[in-house]
């Protein structure tokens, strides 16, 4: 499998225990989240806007640090091991304009490997391989503002694939895409072997790609189970502002 580096001794990819977090303005975004994701699992994170989905994803590599515990591949997240954890959890932000901050596509994809201190040749090789993996080879010298939203999203995924993470945390990967670009992106996600946690409102994507679904509302997990069962529970979905059509 391309681009995975998984510790076979540890079966648990992500373990979150009683995680609580309040933003500086007082908004309590997480009120005790418990979640365990096994290695190789593909998990959907559903929930209305403001449920705490993005906040939870930002905890998985320590960008935000709340009360409670986060373990990645069995290792608890601490200030002194943040750098190692960030190599394992690839976080893809919702808005690719936030994620792509370099003047050219290649520089942006090379950013992660460069910070890992890899030799120059390997940095370039990883960047080119990641771009090829998302179908964006040949766009090396393009400035990100010359790309379409679909292309930007794919490059954003390449920026974390270049770091060869074991876990991918994707925030709204299909939001705002036209049907063609969305289909290409789903096709790409399907081929990625990593453990995946996807925050989304895209129910067909969930049904297609993610066998397990976790529903969040008001900072806690309100349901967790197999996707078909969750999506069939109309009362549950309606109670948390979600529709299945």
């Amino acid at each position, binding site marked *: 499998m391309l681009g995975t580096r998984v510790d076979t001794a540890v079966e648990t990819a992500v373990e979150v225990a009683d995680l609580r977090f309040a933003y500086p303005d007082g908004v309590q975004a997480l009120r005790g989240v418990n979640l365990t994701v096994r290695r190789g699992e593909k998990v959907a994170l559903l929930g209305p806007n403001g449920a705490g989905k993005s906040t939870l994803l*930002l905890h998985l*590599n320590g*960008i935000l640090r709340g009360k409670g515990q986060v373990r990645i591949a069995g290792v608890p997240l601490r200030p002194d091991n943040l*750098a190692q954890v*960030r*190599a394992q959890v690839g*976080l893809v*932000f919702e*808005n690719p*304009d*936030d*994620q*792509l*901050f*370099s*003047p*050219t596509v*290649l*520089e942006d994809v*090379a*950013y*992660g490997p*460069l*910070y*890992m201190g890899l030799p*120059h040749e390997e*940095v*370039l090789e990883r960047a080119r391989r990641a771009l090829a993996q998302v179908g964006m080879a040949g766009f090396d*010298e393009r*400035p*990100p*503002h010359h790309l379409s*939203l679909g292309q930007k999203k794919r490059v954003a995924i390449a*920026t*974390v694939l270049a*770091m060869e993470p074991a876990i991918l945390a994707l925030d709204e990967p299909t939001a705002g895409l036209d049907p063609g670009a969305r289909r290409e992106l789903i096709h790409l996600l399907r081929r990625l072997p990593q453990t995946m946690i996807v925050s989304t409102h895209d129910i067909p994507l969930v049904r297609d790609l993610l066998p397990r679904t976790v529903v969040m509302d008001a900072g806690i997990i309100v349901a967790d189970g197999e996707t078909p069962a969750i999506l069939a529970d109309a009362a549950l979905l309606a109670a948390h502002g979600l529709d299945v059509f």
Partner: protein
Amino acid sequence: MAVGVPFGERYLAGSSAIHAMDARAKLPAALAYIFAVTLTPAGHWAALGLLALPLVAALAASRLSPLLVARRSALALPFVLAAVPLMFTKEGEALFSVPLFGWTASQQGLEAVLSILAKSWLSVVAAVILTATTPAAELLGAMRALGLPRLLVATVSFMYRYLFVIGEEALRLIRARDSRSARLAGQQAGGRLDWRAKVLGHMVGSLFLRTYERSERVYAAMQARGYDGEPRFLQVRAWRAAHVVVAAALVVYLAGVELYARY
């Protein structure tokens, strides 16, 4: 999501020799050229003419449209207005005087103004050729290679990257306002001036807040990929001897012109 920001990319793709030249040679050459032009004594037209030669050669070699270069370089002309009073304040042979005010223009003053005009225009044309033939990313690479502080280069790099994003955001705000700025027949529309100014103020404030919030998200994205406070960049490719020779030859020529203008 291209909504068409009014300020476009400066770079115009091309395959000319000037386009192909290494930015690490082009950037210092252009800077040396601007220095030489600035240092030329006022009113030394022969020297300025000699300095125009490499510019004409570069322009021809770049295959840029002269019209486009003229249009972009016209941007500098309004600033020259600031130099016009010099015409009347400099001591020298009287040329003419403005009736009513009694201002007298001098020969030396006129020469000074025309020199400033010529010098600033030559400098701006040099900068226009540089930016039209060099992608911004390569210019940034050149700054890095020439030893500019990394933090400064990183700042310029972010400015270039987000200029377009923020420009589009501003344009969307303006469009949202214009879409609701309707007029009824027979009705005084547009509101009072102070109200309109307040609306504009809110728009600028909102743009600032959005930009500020974006900076926090960008910083999070950088941290997620390992940023530790020290900007790092990809290495650049190897030098080509020909490019260095051309840049060095230009510098020697410029030094020659400067010596000629003084002795």
